[in-house]
Structures are given as structure tokens and as C-alpha cells.
């Protein structure tokens, strides 16, 4: 959310330098074999290098300078592909390093028991184990991930989130999780360690951004299979060309068979080196874009799945609306004075620290001049809100004042032996129809009236949802509001559907229902009660401010804790897949021009008539072959920025996206190499290297 975190440029000199070095290290065949396409190129490079020495010392099949030049460009092709991958890794590595600095060994204050005063032993953080209890005081660094079991403190989490404003961490509730490496600024916390060394959130984050444990994603493997298949097909094309040409020399009675150098050149040009060389860079860059968006993907699979999402579950509060609902009116039921209602509402809200609760107190003061009283001096007992009761209030002497959702209050009043007045229902409905939230206030058996809370829908969110619809993604608003309120806000915000009066159970059921219909569901969550739904969802974004349980259940963690991020995540996922698809198309379409460059050159001595296929009018057979090889190498380096940044993404329907991309990368892929090869041919002929 903030731009405070240092953003690294794609082509920072230090990253470039390291990438350059790494591209040579990656020539190791044991590394190359993981990428079948580039492995074939490397074998070709070795083969032509040997042929060069053969030509140098014995009688070679072609001039040594020609073989040498082909060989050099083949090596360059491998290096370019390595470079692309190293570059993609570079940014992540740099980030991992700065994260690693925060993981330094520190001394922790281990407590004998869960009591602050139970006595402290100093222990190295690396010796802490799951279940240990430590004390962290102002100025200390939290040694490991854990759960606050006692105390409240402000914590600076900028090391993880890049956000310098301190956050509150306290025991109980959804703010109880702390991350190793963050610093306590004030007060103290008793923390129960929840992970063992090497498994902390920070550790996982480092290994993710660094790509150390990077595994190929399912779609990447499937694409690899396609590319390997194409490579074998083209291997067959070139290998069988040798006997074909030997036969043709006999049949024609003159000429010489195609040379191995030319065959290797043809093979490298035909196999999909462009996508093969850039494929892993695309994957790493996709993860990296997530990191730039301050989202940590716990697996590459999650990024890929994000592109496939069909259904987005969005929490209303914070995502669709600004989050803070404001009390705007007190509407008493008949027979109740408005001021009495305001008074009760204020007392019920005194201990309620939520912005909504605050706004009730403020409204009572502004409208009826009711002054705020200190809840402690009244001797009141605060009844906090829970997801199950869905109401809150105070017990004050014999008075039981409650405010909450209509059906919750109805249940409460009836359990006390009272009745729910009929006009309350109509007031509630009226408010709900306007998209506001009715909060019913009751005292004991008597309903007093209704507080109107207004929700403010975020600007521009409606357009965002209509874009989503264009992309074929269904948006569902999740809210604890009653159905009427929910439908009014849903209509105002332009979501496709809503789940009102949501509980963790109904959420989980909604996800399961959609998945049973074959759809992929994405959601965000932060509370412990979100954890089952997060675990069930295909793409689950946990807020970094959320509980440990939520973070464990999610497969993505949003460091900014911004619920709108889900939309961005989907876009990054789609962009990743699109980049793969477009470069594959481009790579395959390139082959047409390369055939026209190399085939006439290869067979000219056997059938001079085949010179008619040299439609680009390339100068000589040697220059034609060399130009094709050079083009093939250069196109990789030209496309590196595209692979790292991803293709331009616009939220449009599939048909339009396909048409645009097919035109740019399909048709473009057909035409560009004709121009490129011709230009290179003119250039190398002009400077006379062939």
C-alpha cells in the first residue's frame, strides 16, 4: 500500500552483474538437462565446437570460420537463456538477502512458564523450539513466529511488510500473531513460539522469493512436455535429413549432402528456443510480480491457480465498502422517546471500540447532547460481540442493554420473555432497503428502536467488478449483514451475488458448492474462524495482520493486508499464463521464416532449382544459415523484458484477448523473423564476416 519499500528495478547494475556471472555457471549440463530444449542447444554447441576443431586440424565439412561463427552463436543462445533466468532470479535473491539480515541470531528471554514473572533464561533464538514461551519487551526483536498469550504492545513489522507504521499485537482475538524478526516498540508481550527453526514465516518467505525451492508448476510441466515433444519432432526432421540428402545427391548425380553444422543450426532454429529459454524466467518473474505487489506466494501453483479463478469471495468491509460504517440516525419504535433510545444506544456502545461503536457515541452526543460517561465508573459489565451471538452490549446493574442484528435481538428479547414489536421489523426493512445497516437496541424484554449505520461503497469499485465480469469472474460479496442490507449494497457496488448473514460455516459451504460445480474459488481472510474456508479455497489470501492459523491456511499472504489485493493477484496470475501462451505461439510461428532461410541454403548444391525458395534473397547459403541462427539467439534477449514484465494485461473477454494476442504474437511471429533475418543478413554481408 505504501511505496516506502525499496522497489528494485528490473535491470539494476548489481543484479545484471550477478546474472551475467550466473549464466555461465548454468552452462553445467547437469543444470541444463532440466530444460530439454536448451539442453539440445547446448549439445549442438558442443558438437559444432568439436566440428570446428576438426575443420581446423583436419579436413572439415565446411570452412572453420563458418563453423566457428555458428558455434559461437549457439553458445550465445544458451547463455542468453541462462541470463534471462538469472535476471528473473536476481531481484528475488536481492530481496531474500535483505530479509535474511533480519533473521540474525538474537538472544531470547525464555520463560519457565506462561507467567511473565516466572523467571527468564537467556537463550539463543536458534535453540528455541515450538511450544517454548518467551518474554519480549520494548526494544527487543521477536525471536520467532508465535502467538501472544499475554500483554499488548506496538510492534514495528516493517522488516516484513515494508510498512513503517507500528501495529498493535495483543493476546486473544485476531491480533495475536507475531512474526520473528519484527521489533517490539513499546510495552511487552509473552509469546508462545509456534514454529521450529527453519520453518518460520520468514524462512519460508526467503526461500520463496529466492526461488531456492522453486518447483515447476503443473501447467509449466505440461508446457514443458509440449515443448519437448516439438523438440523431438524437429530432431527427427533434422536427423533424417542427412540420409534424405545423401540419397538426393545420388539421385541428382551432383552436389554434397547437407553438413552437420547446417543440420545443427536448422535444429536449433526450429526447436522452440524462444519459449524454452524464457519459460523458467516467466515463472520466476510471475512470483516476483507478486512480491512487488507485496504478496508472498507460498507456492507457484497458487500464482497459476489465481489466473484460473472463477469466483471471488470478497469481504464487504474493507474491500467493497470503506470499512467504517457510521451511525446516522436513531429511529425509536412507537412509544419510545428518541432520546431514551440514544441514551441506551450510547451506554451499549461505550465499551465498543470499533469505529461503528464510536460513531454511535458521537451521534448521541451531537444529536441529543448526551455526554459520554466512563463505563468503569458505572460498574457496567461489557458483553463483547461474537460471531455466534452477533450482538454486543452491557449489563448495568439489573439492566441488560443489547444492540445487534434484528434476528439476534429478536432471539434475545424472546429468550428474556418479551416480544419483538411488529413496527421494528418495518423500520429495519426500510433501513436495509436503503443499503444501510439496522442495529436494533433492546433493554431486557423491551425493544427500544433501531440505529441506522451507513456503509460507504468505495469509489471505482463498480468499474472494477464490471471488468471482472468481462473476464468471466463472478464476484460474491460476503457480509454479516442481513439479506436486505446486503442486496442494497451489492446492487450499489455491482457485485454479482452476495452471501448475507455469513458465518464461517455458510462461507465454507458456499466455497464447497462452487467447487463442486467445477469452479475455482478465491477468497481473503484474516481471522482464525476464516481458516477452514481459506484452507478450502483454491486461492486463499491471508492478511499478514491475521492470525497464525489464517496464514497457515492460506497459500498467499498479503503483507499489506489489503483485501482489494485479490483482484490484483488474479491479474498477475492471468498475466503469467498469457505470457507463456503468447511466447509459445511466437516461438512456433517463427519457424516458417527459418525454413525459408535455411532449406534453400542447405540443398542448393543438390538441387540449384531450390534457390527459388530463397524468397528473402539472402546473400549466400552461409550468410542465410548464420542469419537465422543469430536471429534465433537475439530474439531471446529482445524478449527478456517482455518475459519479466509479462504481456500487457487488459480485462477483456477471452475471445477478444485471444484475437489480440493471436494477431500480435501469432501473425507477428510469422512476419518479424522474415524482416529480422533479412536485416541481419544485410548487416553481416556488409561487414563481410561471411
Amino acid at each position, binding site marked *: 500500500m505504501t511505496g516506502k519499500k525499496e522497489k528494485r528495478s528490473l535491470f539494476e547494475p548489481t543484479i545484471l552483474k550477478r546474472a551475467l556471472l550466473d549464466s555461465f555457471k548454468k552452462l553445467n549440463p547437469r543444470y541444463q538437462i532440466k530444460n530439454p530444449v536448451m539442453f539440445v542447444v547446448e549439445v549442438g554447441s558442443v558438437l559444432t565446437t568439436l566440428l570446428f576443431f576438426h575443420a581446423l586440424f583436419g579436413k572439415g565439412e565446411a570452412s572453420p570460420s563458418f563453423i566457428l561463427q555458428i558455434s559461437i552463436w549457439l553458445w550465445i543462445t544458451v547463455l542468453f537463456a541462462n541470463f534471462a533466468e538469472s535476471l528473473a532470479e536476481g531481484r528475488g535473491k536481492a530481496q531474500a538477502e535483505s530479509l535474511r539480515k533480519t533473521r540474525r541470531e538474537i538472544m531470547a528471554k525464555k520463560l519457565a512458564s506462561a507467567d511473565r514473572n516466572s523467571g527468564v533464561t537467556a537463550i539463543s533464538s536458534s535453540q528455541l523450539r515450538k511450544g517454548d514461551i518467551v518474554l519480549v519487551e520494548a526494544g527487543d526483536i521477536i525471536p520467532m513466529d508465535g502467538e501472544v498469550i499475554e500483554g499488548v504492545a506496538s510492534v514495528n513489522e516493517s522488516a516484513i511488510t515494508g510498512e513503517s507504521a507500528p501495529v498493535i499485537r495483543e493476546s486473544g482475538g485476531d491480533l495475536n500473531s507475531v512474526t520473528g524478526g519484527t521489533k517490539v516498540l513499546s510495552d511487552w508481550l509473552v509469546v508462545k513460539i509456534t514454529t521450529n527453526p527453519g520453518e518460520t514465516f520468514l524462512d519460508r518467505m526467503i526461500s520463496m522469493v529466492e526461488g531456492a525451492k522453486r518447483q515447476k508448476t503443473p501447467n509449466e510441466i*505440461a508446457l514443458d512436455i509440449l515443448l519437448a515433444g516439438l523438440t523431438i519432432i524437429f530432431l527427427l526432421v533434422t536427423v533424417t535429413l542427412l540420409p534424405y540428402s545423401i540419397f538426393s545427391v545420388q539421385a541428382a548425380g551432383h552436389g554434397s549432402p547437407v553438413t552437420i553444422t547446417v543440420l545443427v543450426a536448422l535444429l536449433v532454429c526450429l526447436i522452440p528456443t524462444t519459449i524454452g529459454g524464457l519459460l523458467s524466467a516467466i515463472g520466476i518473474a510471475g512470483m516476483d510480480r507478486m512480491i512487488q505487489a507485496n504478496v508472498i506466494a507460498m507456492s507457484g501453483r497458487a500464482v497459476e491457480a489465481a489466473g484460473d479463478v472463477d469466483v471471488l469471495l470478497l469481504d464487504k468491509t474493507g474491500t467493497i465498502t470503506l470499512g467504517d460504517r457510521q451511525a446516522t440516525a436513531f429511529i425509536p419504535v412507537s412509544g419510545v422517546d428518541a432520546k431514551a433510545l440514544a441514551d441506551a444506544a450510547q451506554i451499549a456502545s461505550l465499551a465498543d471500540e470499533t469505529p461503528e461503536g464510536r460513531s454511535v457515541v458521537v451521534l448521541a452526543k451531537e444529536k441529543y447532547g448526551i455526554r459520554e460517561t466512563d463505563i468503569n465508573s458505572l460498574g457496567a459489565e461489557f458483553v463483547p460481540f461474537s460471531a455466534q451471538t452477533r450482538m454486543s452490549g452491557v449489563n448495568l446493574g439489573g439492566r441488560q442493554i443489547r444492540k445487534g442484528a434484528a434476528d439476534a435481538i429478536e432471539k434475545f428479547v424472546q429468550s428474556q420473555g418479551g416480544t419483538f414489536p411488529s413496527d421494528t421489523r418495518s423500520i429495519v426493512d426500510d433501513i436495509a432497503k436503503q443499503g444501510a445497516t439496522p442495529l436494533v437496541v433492546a433493554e431486557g424484554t423491551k425493544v427500544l428502536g433501531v440505529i441506522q449505520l451507513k456503509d460507504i461503497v468505495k469509489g471505482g469499485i463498480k468499474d472494477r467488478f464490471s471488468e471482472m465480469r468481462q473476464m468471466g469472474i463472478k464476484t460474491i460479496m460476503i457480509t454479516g449483514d442481513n439479506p436486505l442490507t446486503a442486496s442494497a449494497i451489492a446492487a450499489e457496488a455491482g457485485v454479482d451475488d452476495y452471501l448475507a448473514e455469513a458465518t464461517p460455516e455458510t462461507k465454507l459451504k458456499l466455497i464447497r458448492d462452487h467447487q463442486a460445480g467445477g469452479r475455482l474459488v478465491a477468497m481473503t481472510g484474516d481471522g482464525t474462524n476464516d481458516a477452514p474456508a481459506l484452507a478450502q479455497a483454491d486461492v486463499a489470501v491471508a492478511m499478514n495482520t491475521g492470525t497464525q492459523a489464517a496464514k497457515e491456511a492460506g497459500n498467499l499472504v498479503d503483507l499489506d493486508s489489503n483485501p482489494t489485493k485479490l483482484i490484483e493477484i488474479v491479474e498477475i496470475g492471468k498475466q503469467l499464463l498469457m505470457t507463456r501462451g503468447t511466447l509459445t505461439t511466437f516461438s512456433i510461428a517463427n519457424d516458417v521464416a527459418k525454413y525459408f532461410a535455411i*532449406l534453400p541454403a542447405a540443398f542448393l548444391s543438390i538441387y540449384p532449382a531450390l534457390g527459388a525458395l530463397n524468397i528473402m534473397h539472402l546473400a549466400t547459403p552461409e550468410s542465410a544459415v548464420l542469419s537465422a541462427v543469430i536471429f534465433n539467439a537475439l530474439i531471446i534477449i529482445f524478449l527478456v523484458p517482455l518475459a519479466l514484465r509479462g504481456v500487457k494485461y487488459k480485462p477483456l473477454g477471452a475471445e477478444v484477448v485471444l484475437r489480440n494476442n493471436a494477431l500480435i504474437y501469432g501473425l507477428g511471429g510469422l512476419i518479424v523473423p522474415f524482416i529480422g533475418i533479412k536485416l541481419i543478413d544485410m548487416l553481416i554481408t556488409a561487414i563481410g564476416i561471411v
Partner: protein
Amino acid sequence: MTGNDIFQIVLYFGVLLLLAKPLGDYMARVYENQPFVLDRVLGPVERIFYRVCGVNADEEMDWKKYALTVLVFNVGGFFAVYLLQRFQGVLPLNPQKFGAVSPDSSFNTAVSFITNTNWQGYGGESTMSYLTQMAALGVQNFLSAATGMAVLVALIRGFQRHSSKTIGNFWVDLTRSTLYILLPLALIWSVLLVSQGVVQTFSEYKTAMLTQIITYDNPKNDAQGNVIKDEKGNPVTEKAQMKEQSIPLGPAASQIAIKQLGTNGGGFFNVNSAHPFENPTPFSNFLEVIAILLIPAALCITFGKMVGDKRQGRALLAAMVIVLAILMVLCTQIEQKGNPNFASIGIDQGASSLQPGGNMEGKEARFGIVNSTIWATATTAASNGSVNSMHDSFMPLGGLLPMWLIQLGEVIFGGVGSGLYGMLIFAIITVFVAGLMVGRTPEYLGKKIEMFEMKMTILAVLIVNALVKIGTAVGVSTKAGIAGISNPGPHGFSQILYAFSSASNNNGSAFAGLSANTVFYNTALGIAMFLGRFWVIIPVLAIAGSLAAKKKVPAGLGTLPTHTPLFVSFLIGVILIVGALSFMPALALGPIAEHLMMIGK
């Protein structure tokens, strides 16, 4: 092209598509077990058949069992065909008293007919008894076609079903394909062909006196049977006279109907449908050439109907029609234009009311140019392989097109069943690339295309591709392979390339100049045919099994639409680049070189 050329081509596609629609709907009913008229009549026959064979029609098979059953059934068929040929000399219905067919030729022919290839290394009227023609070859014409249809239906079920372990019962699919589809259609076609004068008899061959005695040069052979050559290397000849001719007969019409309908293509007579007793009139020619593509086209409609979205079937059919129409017109144009070398010596090759014009070498005068090129492109688009003209005698580029149609992988219509499942393989590749381009992991008809499907898809494409290329490489590198060539230069290369393309893709047509009835070709092509057929069927069934087990993803705005013109063009692009471009180098050394040398560049 002449006006007649255009009219014939339009008429051909018009009638084909008009017939394909109702037949496609009918076949969907057959496979979906919905009521249709014939099942009331033949239903009892079907049920008795199952009872006699001990088949439990309600028992479904998983893909492995289905594949195993296909293999076992076809291997059984192989032995039946092989043994019938080897023992035909002692079996009945052999009026010409033909002896046993040689072991290598019997092997080749048996493989050829069980794989729906119908490559013929033998000459029918001079080799096979009527019993072999009917009980061995005729029966396999039905069963190999029905096998292809059954495999296709199993694949369609993979798309239809979700979370299912099974893909149907092979025995039921085979029986229903034969009983309700192939037999009735073959009956109709046989009767229509007989009406045109196609022979159907058990009588022995007749001998006719020639009205004009023919004198010709007969090469002299030495005691070992080798041709005697003079000092210049030319064969020594002596004058010979011919006064009478043997007229071969036989139960041809019944076999020709199914060889056309089942994309088999194995002619009753050696020259196939160029023979006047196989294909006497323009109407019989039209009937036969329509029959080539009828079931493959109709199966697209069946597919659309069975997967619950007719547009999907129409899209695949559109891709097929577009590619074939373009190549058919090109071929017609090239052949109609004739030979430039003839033009330079003043031979009139123009079309007029007296002559069809163009390159008439190897073509029947009663069919002319356009009906030869329609047939040549249709029979190679489908893996039929029957001919009514000699592809070897086409212009270099005219002959390139049929060969290229085969090399596309026999997916432009293709064999009955096999063509569409091949096309679906290409559709899966297309969906994979195009699907990624719209930002989703690929899915086709609601099924995610993942690692396993991709592996099997690549396997299916790779095997046939490898068979053609490696086969040709062996052919041009060995003495036995080169010995079969009848023409020097690039055309000789084309002959070998065509043979292996045809066999591996289960087409069965040939560049007629190649002498293929040798141990080398019988064996090599036999292996190519067998692997080209069953090593594709197994991955296809594996895909069917894997798809059937998956959940169905409902389509939305973000899903790649697979019925639009855009998708169709993308599909064609993939077929051309993956299926055909990889043959560019080989074609450059064959027909392209030949053409460029002919026009003197």
C-alpha cells in the same frame, strides 16, 4: 479452372454436408442408446449376438481394459486374415484356383486391413480368392472401421462424463457401429452401385477375344527370370501379340461400398476405382467419392451432439472443410493447367467440349480432371486410400497436395473415427496454447488439459511423425528400399516418402510407380501401419480415461471459446505448423525440387 470444375466441387461439398447432418444425428442416437427406428428391427439380433458371445452389455470398461480389448480383438483379426490368405488354395470360393499368398505379403495385407489402411502390395484380381476377398478383407473393412468409431466414441464419452472411471464397453460400441451404421449404409451403397453396373457375382473370370490384335515389345528374360540387357543397358525386347483378354469378375459391389464408406480403400481390383467394373459411371463415381467423407463428416455432427454443444462439432467440421476445399481447388488448378513442357511443344491442353484438358496422364477419360482431383484430395484427406486416378502421374505439385494431406496426420476428415480423434488431439494442442493466451490454464469442453493429457497427446502426434520420417530414411538408405523406385531423381524420393506417409497414417494409397510387393516393403510398411494405428489408439484411450475421471468446469466469459472462427483458424494454424511444416524439408527434396526443375528455374 473451368466452370464445370467449380460446379463439381461445390456440388460435392453441398451434397456431403447435406447428408452428413442427418447421419450425424442418427449416429448420436445409436451411441447414446436413444430410440431410432432400426433398433426395433435389429435390437433382438444385437441382444442374441451378445448372449452368444457371452458379452455383458451393461458392464463398462475403464480405459486400460478398453484398450486391451481393442488390441486383442484386432490381433485376432490379424490372424484370421493372415491364415485365410495362406490357406486360400485349399478353401472354397476360389474359381481361379489361386494358390497361397506369400508369407510377407500375407503379413502386410493382414496388418493393412486390420489397421483400416488397406495398403495393397498385391493385385486383387490376380491374387485373392473370392473367399479371401469376402471373409478376410471384406469383414475387416467393417471391423476396422467399427474399431475406429468405437475408439472415437470412447473419447467423446471422456468429454461427456465427469468423475467417471469407465468409458463404455468396446464390444457394444463395435457391435452397434457395425450393425446399425456400417451394415445399413453399405447395403444401400451396394445396391446403388450394382444399379450402375458394378459387378457382383461368384462366377469365374471370362475370356474375351480382342477385336483388334495388339502387338507390343515384350522384354526378354534369361533362365533366372532377370531381364536381359544390351550393351547400353536397355532391355532386349521381342515382338509379342495379344489376341484375347481375361475379364476378372467377382463379388465386387458389396466390397466397394464398405471400402469407400469405412475409409478402407482396398480395391477389389488392382487399379481400384479406376477399374470400369469398380466404378463404371459418373454417378457411381459420385456415390463412391461422397462415401469417402460421409461418415467422417457426419461424426463431427455426432460429436457436437454428444458433448451437448453442436457448435463444437461444426467448428471441427469447418476446419476440415476449409483445409480440404483450399487444397482441392489448388490441386484441380494445377492439374487443369497441365504440363508446361507440353505447352512448349505445342500440345493443346485447354479444356473444351471435346477434351477435359490439363494433365490427363494416369486419369480416366470418363472422369476427367476435376473428378480425379476431388477424389485424390478426398481420399488422402480421409485415410481412405482408394483411387480413381494415379497420383504418381499428377504434376509434381498436384501430387504434393495429396501427400501433404496424408502428412497432416489424417485429421482433415481422416479415417472413420480415427480422423476425428486425431483432430481432437490437435484441438487439445490448440486449446493448450490458445488457452494460455487468454490467461487461464487450458481447458477443452470443460475439461482441464493437464500433464497427463499433454503427454498422451504428444505421444500420439510423435509416433506417426517418427514412423514416416524414420521409415523414409531407412527406405532411401537401404538397397532394398531404393530397388522399389521406378523413377530417377526427386520423384523416386517422393515415391518412398509417399509410401511411408501413407502406411504410417493408415491411408493406403500409393504413388503407383513403387514396387512395394517385396519382403522389405511388405515388412517395413506392415510395421509402420501397425504402430501408426495402435500406438495412437492407446494414448487416445488413455486421454479418454483421464478426461472421464475429471470434473467438468462450467464455461464462462473468461473461458476460451472453441467454436468461433478465430479458434478454427488457430486450429488450422497448429495443424499446418505442427503437422505439416515438419515435412517441408522432405517435400523440398521431393515434389518441390521436381517442380522447380520442371519449370526450369
